C-alpha cells in the first residue's frame, strides 16, 4: 500500500461522508431556504414575498404556543434526561445493584418501542374509558371524573413530557455508559482507597471526564427536542385545541395539509436558526464550565 501524505489521508477520510451529506441534506435545505421567501396559492408558487412568511409565522399564536411547548421539551431533555442518564449509567457502571445487565436492557427498551404502542397503551390507561379513569370513577363515586390535566391549557404538555423522559433517557444512558469505559477502573479504586465519597467521585472524576460528552448530548438533546414529532403526534396530535402543538407539527401541517411550501420551508429555517442559537449558548456555558474545572 503506497503511503498517503497527511493532506491526502485527511481528505480520504473526510470527503466520502461530506459528499453524501452535502448531496442529500444541504442541497435540499438550500432549496428550502429559497422557498421560504415565496408565496403559494392554490398549490402553485405565485412569487416572492420577502419576509412575509416569517412574519406571519412568528406572529401566529399557534406557532408561539408550539415554540413554548418545544422549549418545555428541551428543558426536560437537557435538565431531565441527561442528568438521569448520567446517574443511571454511573450506577450501572459501578454495579451498585445486582443484575445490571437486566436493568440496562430494561432501561434501553423504551426507545425501541413504537410511539404508536406507547400512545395506545397510555390511552388504555388514562383516557375516559381507560382503567385508571374507570377505577377512580368507581372508588370516588364520581362518574364524571376525567384526567383534567389533558384539557388544561397550561399543563397539557406535562403527560407528554413524562413519557418523553421515560422513553429517551436510555439514549443518553447508552452514550454515557460507553464513555465511562474510558475511565480506567484503577482511578475509582484509588479514589475509594483514599476515602472519597461517591458524590465526590461523581463531581471530581466522572463529570470532568464526561464533560465533552455531556456537551455532545446537550447538542443532541436540543436539536432533537426542537424537531420532536413522533410521540407528540401519536399521543395527542397537538390537541386538545392546540395545547400540545409543536413546531414540527406546525411545519408538517403547513407543508402537507395546507400545501404552503413557502410557509413550511420558513418553519424549517426558523427551527434551524433557533437550534444554532441555543447550541451556541450551550457552547458558551460549556466553555465557561471547562475553565472552572481547570
Amino acid at each position, binding site marked *: 500500500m503506497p503511503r498517503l501524505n497527511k493532506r491526502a489521508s485527511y481528505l480520504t477520510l473526510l470527503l466520502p461522508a461530506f459528499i453524501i451529506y452535502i448531496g442529500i441534506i444541504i442541497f435540499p435545505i438550500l432549496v428550502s431556504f429559497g422557498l421560504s421567501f415565496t408565496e403559494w396559492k*392554490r*398549490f402553485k408558487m405565485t412569487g416572492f414575498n420577502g419576509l412575509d412568511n416569517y412574519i406571519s409565522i412568528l406572529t401566529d399564536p399557534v406557532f408561539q404556543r408550539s415554540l413554548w411547548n418545544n422549549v418545555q421539551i428541551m428543558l426536560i431533555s437537557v435538565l431531565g434526561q441527561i442528568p438521569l442518564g448520567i446517574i443511571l449509567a454511573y450506577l450501572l457502571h459501578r454495579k451498585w445493584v445486582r443484575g445490571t445487565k437486566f436493568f440496562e436492557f430494561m432501561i434501553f427498551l423504551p426507545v425501541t418501542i413504537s410511539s404508536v404502542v406507547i400512545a395506545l397503551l397510555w390511552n388504555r390507561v388514562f*383516557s375516559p374509558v381507560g382503567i385508571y379513569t374507570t377505577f377512580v370513577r368507581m372508588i370516588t363515586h364520581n*362518574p364524571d371524573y*376525567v384526567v383534567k390535566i389533558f384539557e388544561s391549557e397550561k399543563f397539557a404538555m406535562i403527560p407528554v413530557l413524562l413519557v418523553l423522559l421515560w422513553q429517551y433517557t436510555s439514549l443518553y444512558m447508552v452514550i454515557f455508559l460507553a464513555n465511562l469505559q474510558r475511565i480506567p477502573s484503577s482511578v475509582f479504586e484509588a479514589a475509594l482507597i483514599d476515602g472519597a465519597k461517591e458524590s465526590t467521585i461523581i463531581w471530581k472524576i466522572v463529570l470532568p471526564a464526561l464533560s465533552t460528552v455531556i456537551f455532545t448530548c446537550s447538542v443532541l438533546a436540543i436539536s432533537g427536542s426542537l424537531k420532536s414529532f413522533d410521540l407528540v403526534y401519536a399521543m395527542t396530535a397537538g390537541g386538545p*385545541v*392546540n395545547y400540545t402543538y409543536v413546531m414540527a407539527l406546525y411545519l408538517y401541517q403547513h407543508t*402537507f*395539509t395546507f400545501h*404552503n411550501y413557502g410557509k413550511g420551508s420558513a418553519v424549517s429555517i426558523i427551527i434551524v436558526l433557533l437550534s444554532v442559537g441555543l447550541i451556541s449558548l450551550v457552547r458558551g456555558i460549556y466553555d465557561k464550565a471547562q475553565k472552572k474545572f481547570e
Partner: protein
Amino acid sequence: MKKTALFALVLVLAMTFVSAAGTKEQSSDDGTVTLTAYMQIDPANDQYAGHNAVMAAFEEKYPNIKLDIEYASGEAFHQKFQSMAASKQIPDIYTCYGGARTAYVTETGLTLDLTPYLDDAFKSQFASATWNPQGSAGVIYMIPPAFSVCHTIYANTAILDKLGLEYPKTFDEWLSQIPTIRAAGYYPVSMGNKDPWVVNSWLLGTLIERFGGKEWIMKAAKGEASFTDEPFVKALDVIKQMSDAGLFSPGVNQMSNSEADQEFYQQKSVYLIDAGWRTSAMDAALPADQREAIKMTVFPALDGEVTHNTSSAVASEGFALSKALEKDKAKLDAALTFIKFYTGTEGATIRAEHGDVPSYNLDLSKVNLDVMQKKFVEFSAEYPMGYVFDSIMDGEGVTMLNTDLQAMMMGNGDPKQIAADYEAWVAANDSNRD
C-alpha cells in the same frame, strides 16, 4: 484485518443488491399492459374485503392487464402523493376525492377529465349524485365506487326500553332525557372528538344544512351569504348547548373514535354519534342481540330547521386517471376498463356481497347482509343526504374552525365570535371566494 475483509464482503453484497433492485415498468411485447396504481385502501382491513374480491375477479377476467398497486393510508398517503404531484410523476390510476382534500392533484392539471369517456348509458346505472360536478372546473375527475355517510346516530334501544324512553323527536326532548339517563347510571352520548374534525364532519355539516337548506352552504362558500348568518351561528349554538347540558359523556374531547365506540359497545352510553362506515366493525365486534337492538338514525328535529331528517354524505374516494394517459391509447383503455369494472355492474355486485353500498344502482334486498350492514342499507335509503362541510371548504380554514369548536366544547368560546373569525378567514383566504 478480519474486520476489513468482513466490511468489504458486506459492501460487495450491498452493491449486488442495489444493482438488482428496483422494478422498472416492463415493456408490453406480449400485449400485456402494466399500469401503476396508488390507492388509499387497506386490504388487510375487514372493511375492504370487497375490494380484495373485486381485484381477484378483475385479474381473472383481464389477465393481460397488470396492476402494479401501492397501498397507503392516512396522512402518509397524502404526503407522498403531494411529492408525486410536485414532481409531476403520478401513477396511472389513483384514488382521490372530488372535493378539496386532494385538490393538490385534481386542481393542478394532473388529472384526466373523464367526461368524454363516460356515456349516458353507463352513467344512468348509478345513483345520480355520483355525477355531481367535481372540483372548481365542475368536471368529472373520478368515479366514486360508494358514498360515505358522515352523520349517523346509533341508539341502544335496549337501554331506552329499560328506561322507558324513546328515540327523541326533537332536540329539546333529547336534552330533557339527560336527567333520566344519568340517574340510571348511563352516559347519554358518546362521541370521539379527540381529533377535532369529528364534530365538524359528523355533526356540524348536518346541523348547518338543517338550518340553511342544501343551497346555503354554496352561497356562503362563494360569498353570497356569510358565515356570520343564522344557519351557521345556530348550528354552532346547538353544539354548544349539547356540551353545556352534559349530553356528551365526560371527556368527549379526550376520546378517540375507537374509545367512544368502546364506551357505547360496553353499553355505558345510550347513543353514539359516528359515521356510517362503522357498521362493518360493529358486525365484527358485537354479539347479535346487541346489534339487533341498535337503531340507526339521524339528529332529531330542531326549532327553525328548514330540512328534516337529513344526514350528510359525500362521494367516497374514487378512481381517477393520470392526464398523461391521454398519450397512450392502450394504457388509457386498460385503465378505463379497470375503473368501469370496479365501479360498474361486476365490481358493484361483488362489493355488495361483502357489505358495501355501491354508488351503482343494485337491488340490495336480494343480497345476504350482516345485521348492521343491512341497517346501513336501510338507513341510506331512508334519510335524505346533505353535503359534508369539509369537502367544500379549504382545509386550513376548516382546521382553524375545528380547533375553535373544540375549545368551545371545553368551555372557551362563543358561537358568534367563532363564526366571525371563520368568516374573516374565508373572506381573506378561501379558494371558493377567489
